[in-house]
């Protein structure tokens, strides 16, 4: 008998090996509940993020408005420097 034939015989025998009994239902459901729990918290977080984003946008807009005259006055100063030179 070749090595391969012996392997095939062994594989045939191994197919008869039955797995033990198991019950994973409770554990699976616990994991599923745990993974789904953060989803419920997601909605308020999403609303909060949206409000924060809107507030930040207004802040940036006002800052831009304030920056323009500031940058203009600086450029004016640089122009004076050039004239003085």
């Amino acid at each position: 008998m070749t090595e391969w034939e012996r392997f095939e015989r062994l594989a045939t025998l191994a197919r008869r090996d039955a797995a033990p009994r198991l019950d994973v239902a409770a554990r699976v459901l616990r994991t599923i509940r745990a993974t789904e729990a953060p989803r419920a918290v997601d909605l308020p977080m999403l609303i909060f993020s949206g409000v924060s984003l809107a507030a930040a946008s207004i802040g940036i807009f006002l800052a831009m408005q304030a920056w323009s005259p500031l940058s203009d006055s600086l450029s004016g100063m640089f122009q004076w420097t050039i004239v003085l030179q």
Partner: protein
Amino acid sequence: MSELALQAGAAGEDAGPSGGPGDGPDVQAALDGDSDAYARLIARYQQAIGSYMWRFTRDRLRWEELVHDVFVEAYLSLRGYRGEAPLLHWLRKIATRVGYRWWRCRTRQKVESSLELQDWDQVAGADLGIEAAREASQQVHALLAKMSARDRLVLTLLYLEECSVAEAARLCGWSQTMVKVQAFRARKKLKKLLERGDDSQ
């Protein structure tokens, strides 16, 4: 989805051991958030999936973990189940992915180590009782553990699960040609491994 799920249920009834009766309504109910329905699906298929995952590991704790992972993954992708095949076929596909992923994560054992298959003839030729089957299974498992995950997967499906090339291709998500090529290479490597093991004795 409900129509498809119902078709799945019908297919399950027709398919006999491949699918259980009432899969469709339970799938639909599970999608609607009914955990009892999913528990029923788990109870219906956990033994079949458990037997399948037994090919991937002999470590009982790891085995239970793998079966658990299969059902969690199945739940998370349940919306993707189109009901075209019995639920068990779909679960086995996920199980193949989970098992293969686990094999890939594991450190490959050294091929150089002795095979410990001295008693092949005694084991294979002895009585066909549960103990002999268990021992044979352990030996085959130890032998295949010395191979790469791909080789191991294709040999497990073809020789332990007795899948056809088409079935193996479906479970692995490979083409049939790919399965044939992979099986050819794996057989060649295994023969070499067996000869080496034989020489070392």
